[in-house]
């Protein structure tokens, strides 16, 4: 097989050598034969004649030999390709237009597909991902207790995990991992270096985590069960990327001591290259630590609390284990584990316990939170890009048709000279496939650049994201397949039509022949293009409007000259007892800085990805099954973020741990829990239950500043003084990690460029372990919440513009071509007295007619499409009049421009010259 191919290729590429050899060989034969005959007594002339007679036609023999060598098919193709390239280079404007159209169409699709492939289709880089199973089908996060939404569990307590591991032998290995590690960074510093401590992402995992994924250490060893036991020396492994980036792959890192959250930890090994953890994340973990190290390092009280769920579980099932019965068993085991849980022991709790369940899902891609988050958006973009490709294809088909028409004369001539129709079609098809192939290659370039741009739009500032934009094999296949399909699909029709040219056309003047069928096809393609462009413009307009609405929402806060600093006093080694002093010191030090007006300290701030919600019950009311978010805050917090107090008072400095426990609630809280006109001030509320409903006395009401997301409506919130603990709290203060406040808001009287350095220095002066996890202006933090919306809006605008451009090129091409074809006719009209204006109107009528038809098709189609994107839009449920009208006006103007240029050219035709062309 291979030798056959090599043989054929030698025949093809060393054509002259092979030809010469053939000549020599046959020549030798003839001469020998002649000599033999001469020896037997014939004259040389007779001998030659007889030899030739015996041999037959020499060219025929040679052709037979060539065919035997398998030259013909490849050679014809090579010849066709050379011819196609020559033809294409003779019409550079056409070629470049088609290539650009294809490159943009294919490139846009391949770029999106690159991302889809890298984000949605990617499996974890571990052995046999197919046998991994995740326990749970939702992405609840990060620490919680009690019943889940409709009893569907995906997060578990350490206790439950241990029981599942012990009682489900169907799993070869069952690993547990911290559900929400990205918001809980650690502070790490290598021992014996002067490099400052850094806040980095770290994930606490079970001892068999790496064994479950069947990974081998890149250096040293990975975590083992022995590391994950109480009292074991604290160990960690480092990610390959962090090892390379921060320590240049220094082998001495393995075995060295790191100070993690101020405690010594031995790094025992490096994770294999490419392993980015159990989930795709913008900021993958740099350290993996055993679960049992968490109470030591992070002082987290929930690790050994059987009622606190904080772990995800992924297991590797044994071969041949069926999922359905296993799911039933795991559900039963979970119910068993929860039965002893306080919340499920009451009568009502027992009823909810019956509804508790675990759904087993494929775990080969790990925890798919990010995939779910971006999936709908990527699919939407894929749809939009697909429409653009459709328009691009219509354009290419149109241009090929026009070209086919223009070459009728040439093709008729070739037919007249004896070329077979099949051969002509094959040649024209080769041309379009060559074109498509080149377009595909150019498209790959566009795809590479486009995917990088997409990545930057989708994840701004994410340097360590484990998504690679270099086109993978499947992307290459995708692009090549797509371009070949385009080439064949849109090459066949023009080739067929062009090949209809009879030889007689060559004799006639081809200029006069009309190709009505092609013309209808061309106009039809333009109509489709206009219609699709309208759809894309409308979609783009809707996303633009949606983004404007989102960004234009009154967040009821003041972001001017505000800086938000995220820290973690817990990882800096502070105990709960020391916190009050720390907060006072921070207030003082920051206030002492010139230009600082207000210093707010709080659990979290408006418009960030953090939330802490609990059930609440007003004293004297039944529990209405209502939850509210709680924030601990200092006296200046409301002023620092610009939240206005509308009733009563805010939190003040006199609200100390010793004074009455008070709370400030937001307006939604009042609206939802009190009757209209009822005065909430002085009323009490707390967690549901007779002991706790009197915990907080309402002393004030604030406006509904937006937290978490603009899309989150009816957000009940209450704010409590930073160090006050509810009276009913039974756990000692040492167990209350809600006292650790992670956000500082600094309001200044003017913009300060070197805020980062000032903040770092100020915090380091208090304690060198107080590192900055993140520092942004308030505006940056808010803008981050709109990243995805902005990406979708920008891309849909880009694609809309692209579609419009392609449609214009298509319309221009068809109009210009029809003007050229009708030149003699227009000449006659003008010779007979037609006005310039009349000619322009005639040409424009044709163009506008197509546009109007396109709009007529596009408008209902656009209305249907809105349904598909509705879920992605904010407070927009239908294509509103402004967007629709705007899109139509833009299209109309574009169509006008595309039509007027050839129309004016038609009007400037010189009748005499036009008639002479006959």
């Amino acid at each position, binding site marked *: 097989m291979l*030798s*056959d191919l090599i*043989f*054929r290729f030698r025949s093809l590429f060393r054509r002259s050598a092979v030809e010469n*050899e053939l000549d*020599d*060989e*046959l020549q*030798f*034969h003839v*001469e*020998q*034969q002649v000599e033999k005959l001469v020896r037997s007594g014939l004259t040389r002339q007779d001998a030659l004649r007889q030899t030739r007679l*015996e*041999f*037959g*036609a020499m060219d*025929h*023999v040679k052709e*037979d*030999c060539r*065919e*035997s*060598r*398998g030259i013909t098919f490849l050679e014809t193709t090579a010849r066709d390709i050379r011819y196609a390239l020559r033809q294409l280079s003779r019409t550079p404007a056409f070629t470049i237009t088609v290539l650009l159209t294809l490159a943009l169409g294919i490139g846009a699709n391949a770029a999106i597909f690159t991302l889809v492939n890298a984000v949605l289709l990617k499996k974890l880089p571990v052995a046999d991902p197919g046998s991994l199973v995740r326990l749970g089908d939702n992405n609840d996060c990060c620490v919680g207790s009690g019943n889940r939404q409709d009893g569907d569990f995906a997060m578990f307590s350490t206790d439950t995990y241990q029981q599942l591991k012990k009682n489900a032998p169907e799993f070869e290995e069952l690993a547990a991992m911290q559900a929400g590690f990205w918001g809980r960074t650690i502070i790490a510093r290598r021992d014996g270096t002067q490099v400052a401590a850094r806040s980095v992402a770290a994930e606490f995992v079970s001892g068999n985590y790496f064994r479950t994924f069947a990974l081998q250490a890149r250096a040293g060893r990975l975590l083992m069960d022995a590391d994950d036991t109480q009292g074991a020396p604290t160990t960690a492994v480092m990610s390959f990327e962090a090892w390379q980036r921060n320590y240049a792959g220094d082998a001495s890192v393995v075995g060295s001591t790191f100070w993690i959250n101020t405690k010594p930890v031995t790094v025992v090994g490096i994770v294999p290259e490419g392993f980015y953890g159990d989930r795709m994340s913008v900021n993958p973990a740099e350290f993996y630590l055993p679960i049992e190290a968490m109470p030591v390092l992070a002082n987290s009280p929930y690790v050994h609390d059987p009622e606190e769920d904080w772990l995800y579980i992924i297991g590797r099932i044994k071969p041949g284990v069926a999922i359905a019965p296993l799911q039933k068993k795991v559900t039963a085991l979970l119910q068993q584990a929860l039965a002893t849980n306080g919340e499920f022991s009451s009568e009502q709790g027992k009823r909810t316990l019956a509804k508790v369940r675990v759904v087993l899902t494929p775990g080969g891609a790990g925890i798919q939170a990010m995939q779910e988050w971006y999936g709908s958006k990527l699919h939407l973009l894929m749809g939009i890009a697909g429409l653009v490709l459709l328009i691009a294809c219509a354009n290419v088909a149109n241009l090929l048709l026009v070209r086919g028409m223009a070459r009728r004369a040439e093709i008729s001539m070739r037919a007249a000279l004896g070329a077979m129709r099949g051969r002509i079609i094959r040649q024209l098809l080769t041309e379009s496939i060559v074109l498509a192939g080149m377009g595909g290659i150019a498209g790959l370039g566009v795809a590479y650049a486009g995917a990088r741009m997409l990545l930057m739009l989708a994840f701004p500032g994410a340097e360590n994201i484990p998504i690679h934009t270099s086109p993978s094999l499947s992307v290459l296949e995708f692009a090549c397949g797509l371009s070949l399909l385009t080439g064949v699909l849109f090459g066949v029709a023009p080739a067929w039509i062009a090949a209809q040219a009879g030889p007689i056309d060559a004799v006639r003047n081809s200029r006069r022949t009309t190709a009505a069928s092609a013309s209808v096809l061309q106009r039809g393609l333009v109509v489709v293009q206009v219609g699709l462009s309208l759809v894309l413009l409308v979609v783009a307009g809707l996303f633009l409007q949606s983004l404007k609405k989102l960004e234009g929402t009154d967040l009821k806060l003041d972001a001017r000259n505000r800086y938000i600093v995220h820290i973690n006093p817990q990882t800096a080694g502070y105990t709960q007892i020391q916190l009050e002093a720390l907060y006072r010191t921070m207030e003082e030090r920051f206030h002492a800085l010139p230009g600082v007006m207000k210093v707010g300290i709080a659990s979290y701030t408006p418009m960030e990805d953090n939330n802490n919600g609990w059930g609440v019950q007003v004293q004297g009311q039944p529990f209405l099954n209502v939850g509210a978010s709680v924030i601990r805050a200092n006296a200046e917090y409301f002023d620092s973020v610009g939240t206005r107090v509308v009733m009563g008072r805010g939190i003040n400095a006199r609200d100390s741990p010793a004074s009455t426990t008070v709370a400030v609630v937001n307006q939604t809280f009042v609206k939802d829990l009190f009757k209209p006109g009822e005065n909430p001030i002085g009323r009490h509320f707390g967690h549901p239950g007779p002991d706790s409903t009197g915990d907080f006395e309402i002393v004030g009401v604030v406006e509904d500043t937006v937290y978490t997301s603009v899309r989150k409506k009816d957000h009940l919130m209450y704010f409590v003084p930073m160090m006050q603990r509810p009276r009913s709290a039974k756990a000692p203060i040492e167990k209350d990690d809600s006292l650790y406040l992670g956000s500082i808001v600094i309001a200044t009287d003017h913009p300060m460029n070197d805020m980062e350095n000032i903040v770092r220095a100020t915090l380091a002066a208090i304690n060198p372990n107080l590192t900055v996890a993140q520092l942004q202006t308030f505006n940056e933090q808010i803008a981050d919440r709109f990243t995805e919306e902005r990406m979708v809006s920008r891309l849909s605008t880009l694609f809309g513009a692209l579609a419009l451009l392609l449609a214009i090129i298509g319309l221009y091409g068809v109009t210009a071509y029809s003007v050229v074809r009708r030149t003699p006719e227009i000449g006659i009209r003008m010779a007979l007295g037609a006005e310039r204006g009349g000619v322009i109107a005639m040409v424009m009528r044709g163009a506008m007619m197509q546009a109007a038809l396109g709009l007529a098709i596009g408008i209902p189609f656009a209305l249907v499409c809105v349904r598909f994107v509705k879920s992605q839009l904010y407070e927009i449920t239908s294509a509103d009049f402004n967007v629709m009208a705007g899109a139509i006006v833009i299209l109309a103007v574009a169509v006008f421009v595309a039509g007027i240029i050839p129309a004016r050219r038609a009007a400037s035709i010189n009748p005499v010259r036009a008639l002479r062309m006959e």
Partner: protein
Amino acid sequence: MTGEHIDLPQGTLDLLILRALALGSQHGLAISERVQQLSSDALRIQQGSLYPALHRLERRGLIKANWGTSENNRRAKYYELSKNGRQQLEVETDAWAKLTAAVAQVLGTA
């Protein structure tokens, strides 16, 4: 030029060429002469079909071609059997023997 010539049945040309080459490498003309000689002049290969057949066999890897020098010091293309060709010859010879025997039997009993 003398004697009776038999038309070659379809597909036997390749077999004859392989057989002729089994005796050693030869150029095209010598192959046709050898076939003629081995068949006591009964078989003659059409010159026009000899070379396409040689090129076909070369492509199939049954024979190999080398440029050498002829008896009268001319550059000539010599063909020889490849390992595959030798095997193919055995297989085909066997098949041919069975075929002719069977045909003869049918004709004899008819």
